[in-house]
């Protein structure tokens, strides 16, 4: 579904702040793959996602999504097929617009023709938005006309997830999307993520700092360090792996300790 061929990205080249954030990254994701990504701060995980969404163009290499070369495609055109969630729940929704209006914006991705510009939200669509919100079990379906700014962080993140997947994306990128939420809410959003990804068989990449999640969720675990993917395990090998093994692998591969203060070893 997604293949990254030797992509590299250097920020601020030729200055004292030069930083090689991605270094010849190769990755092949099969249709329906759900891979978790771990790695210390500054390893390049978010930069990898930003390269895929087109926040910047890569210096070298190719990005192929569903057989199409999107390396030089503009960000807003790529985003029709890519869902992207950030750690900050405030980033995914427009606070001064209503829940309904936010969902209508997300649903724009479904329309391909330009005459849809001057159409308004139809009552059929409103009904559909309502039904989808009801699945969240957060009572949001009764608050369609309220501005999103009134929702809690967890509610906003759940809504963002719904919006990102309303039109099934070719790939879903989750960048520590539960890290800023309290544990109970984080679990709720995570369960929702699992359900949606499984039901629709969405190809998914998820950054996490929780080592248990990294091994339990999905079918593949990647580890990044200094802009490279240093570990890629799946199948038998992965099921046999413990959290301790994973940490050990990291120090082996990267030649240093994973910064422990951000790593969650507990469940």
């Amino acid at each position, binding site marked *: 579904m997604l293949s990254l061929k030797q992509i590299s990205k250097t920020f601020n080249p030729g200055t004292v702040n030069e930083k090689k954030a991605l270094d010849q990254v190769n990755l092949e994701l099969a249709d329906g793959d759900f891979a978790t990504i771990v790695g210390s701060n500054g390893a390049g995980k978010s930069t990898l996602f930003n390269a895929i969404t087109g*926040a910047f163009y890569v210096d070298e290499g190719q990005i192929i999504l569903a057989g199409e070369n999107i390396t030089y495609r503009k960000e*807003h055109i790529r985003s029709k097929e890519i869902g992207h969630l950030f750690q900050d729940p405030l980033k995914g929704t427009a606070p001064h617009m209503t829940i309904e209006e936010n969902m209508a*914006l997300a649903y*724009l991705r479904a329309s391909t023709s330009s005459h849809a510009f001057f159409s*308004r939200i139809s009552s059929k669509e409103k009904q559909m938005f309502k039904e989808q919100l009801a699945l969240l079990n957060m009572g949001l379906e009764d608050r369609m006309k309220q501005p999103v700014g009134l929702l809690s962080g967890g509610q906003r993140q759940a809504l963002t997830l719904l919006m990102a997947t309303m039109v099934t994306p070719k790939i879903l990128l989750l960048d520590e999307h539960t890290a800023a939420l309290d544990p109970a809410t984080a679990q709720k959003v995570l369960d929702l993520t699992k359900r949606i990804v499984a039901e629709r068989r969405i190809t998914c990449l998820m950054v996490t700092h929780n080592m248990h999640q990294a091994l339990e969720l999905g079918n593949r675990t990647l580890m990044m360090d200094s802009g490279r993917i240093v570990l890629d395990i799946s199948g038998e090998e992965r099921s046999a792996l413990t959290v301790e093994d994973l940490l050990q692998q990291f120090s082996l591969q990267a030649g240093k300790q994973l910064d422990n203060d951000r790593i969650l070893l507990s469940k």
Partner: protein
Amino acid sequence: MSSIFTLSIVQSALELGCIYSLVALALFISFSILNIADLSTDGCFTLGCAVGAVVTIAGHPFLAFPAAMAAGVASGFITAFLQTRMGVPSILAGIIVNTGLYTVNIAVMGFSSNVNLFACDTIFSLAKDKVAADWYNSWYKIILVVAIVLLVSVILAWFLNTRLGLSIRATGDNEHMVRASSINPVFTITVGLCLSNSLTALSGAILAQYQKSCDINLGTGMVTIALASLIIGETIIGKGGMFKKVIGVILGSCLYRFIVAVALRMSVPAECLKLVSALIVAIAIAFPYLKGQASFLKTRKTLERAGRKDGGSVC
């Protein structure tokens, strides 16, 4: 008090309030919705006035409005082009266009600093005497401008709820979201600024016909006045849907004109009006911040007092 609010004062405040409310609506789009301070407003207002005046003098009082709006669209497009394609910071883009427009405006008026429309037909002169009744002849100007402004409001409120309108609103509301969704901010900013500048120019063109003249310095300070109207409107309306907000902006503009009329009646010299509007804007924008500061100081005082009682310190 009755001497302050004579009928003719109320009428002219309503007339001017409605005409200038289109500029406030333009800022509603650029400043409130897109979160861009468009400083080309002054020049664009004069541009609309000049184009409207020239086309009216040429004998086309109705064509004057679409012509002025087209000129406004062009001006807005250039401002948007500079900031979205040329990397010019948005405030600077507005200032640059505003400066350039001065020459354009003089040129439109045939290289003179003012023109007058005394001898030609305007929508107002055409509407006059259409109904033979006393009330009509004192109210026809208001009826006309209210009709135009209401029409614009309905179209604008409708537009802001279409998909394109929603995209424009999202662009100013959350840039991260816009980047992650399929909205092209270059496109939405361009459409938004073209739309807002077309309203500014329309306002100028109506004013040209209303006061039967156009002067090169007419637009000076327009952005501040419109901002004052916008803020007054947003304060009195508060939260609500798009149509309610649009109506609020128009009410704000009329209210601003009443304040000015009252100030004039209380013999504040006309030269001081710009200072008065600058004060209104400064106070209105600073007000929420000062309110926050005041409540912070209050909380701190009570906390400190409580801290002293407990014998501990508050950090």
